[in-house]
């Protein structure tokens, strides 16, 4: 536990202006060798850009096929679900509208950052009652919970 913590704190310690960079974007290979020279540590550290370079809908297509995920394609990002969601009011990392959008567009780094929070959904169904497009966000949260663990949803097709 303590070791884990330290590792997290030290992540990207070689980066100048470290606080500019998201944890998710720092790549530090445990061991990196080039031409027999040990390149791990400082020289192996890589900072990925924030720029979105690809739209990838394979996860989204998978969600559509999961139970109660079928209507997710109707979402137009109005945020009504988040507005009424008790969990979103308590924790900014859980946001049903946002989850739907990043999954739709396949923003992998964002998904990595927030996906574990999907399990906070209390299943109260307030969002599904509020949604103007009949997306059933409560159901979509179920589908997303499964999709984030599912190989099929990730593989697409």
């Amino acid at each position, binding site marked *: 536990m303590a070791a884990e913590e330290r590792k997290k704190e030290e992540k990207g310690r070689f980066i100048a202006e470290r606080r500019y960079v998201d944890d998710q974007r720092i790549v530090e290979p445990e061991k990196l060798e080039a031409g027999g020279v040990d390149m791990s540590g400082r020289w192996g550290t890589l900072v990925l850009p924030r720029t979105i370079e690809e739209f990838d809908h394979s996860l989204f297509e998978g969600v559509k096929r999961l139970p109660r995920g079928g209507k997710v394609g109707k979402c137009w990002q109005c945020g009504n679900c988040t507005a009424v969601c008790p969990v979103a009011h308590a924790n900014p990392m859980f946001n049903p509208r946002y989850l739907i959008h990043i999954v739709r567009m396949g923003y992998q780094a964002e998904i990595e950052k927030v996906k574990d929070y999907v399990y906070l*959904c*209390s*299943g109260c169904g307030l969002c599904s009652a509020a949604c103007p497009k009949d997306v059933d966000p409560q159901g979509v949260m179920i589908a997303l919970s499964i999709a984030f663990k*599912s190989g*099929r949803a990730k593989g697409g097709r």
Partner: protein
Amino acid sequence: MGPSEAVPLIIDRNAIVGHAAVVDLMAVLLPLSFVLLYLRVRGWDVPFTPFGIFASLFAKEGKPGFAARSRALLSATAQDILFLKRAGGRCEEPLHTWGRGLVMWGALGSVAATLLAALTDPAAVPMALTDPVRLLGDLSQAALASGAAILILRRLSNGARRRATDIHTWSLQCLLLYVGLSGVAVDALSQGGSFLAMEAMYISQLASISALLLYAPFSELAFLVWKGSLLVQKSLLDEAGPPG
């Protein structure tokens, strides 16, 4: 049958549906239900199934031993599931939390009462009204019924929520309500109703329990069980370290 003759409850009854038959029925349905649950979850193509928890208990790797893991499992289950600390803890609607809590506690209590009654000598009936096992059973079934009623009314009372509710949610909640209500009714009838009415009620309760067992793997319950065990496993890993 005179009203003074208390009727033996739930388990032993050498009446229309005998004890042995009920045990046989459950012996078939329970495993079937678990298998169906397993298959459904597998159908989602997720690596984790609720049975994975037991696997992580027995995992050979990792420092803490079996005992430590079991303790962690129990405390995680108690915190996350029994006391609704995780998902439920975020719910700002006390009514909703109560509804779900009552259903869960009621269901667990009913199962416990049934098992206890089965373990005690079935011949030693009738059970007195004050018998703790019987009390537990009655209270549990009442809790189950009122919890389900709360959940249903909560959704019925708001037009938008009513319309947005999935058909599977309705079916599941109504089934739970019926299981609880019929249990209470059987017991009430045993105190003074006609024998036939009580028998009919008992049979209908058995039918609803069977339906529930067969339906649960295809309802939202499958997801709740899966998610609940996933949360528990996460706590388990956090507390005891990864199994491998």
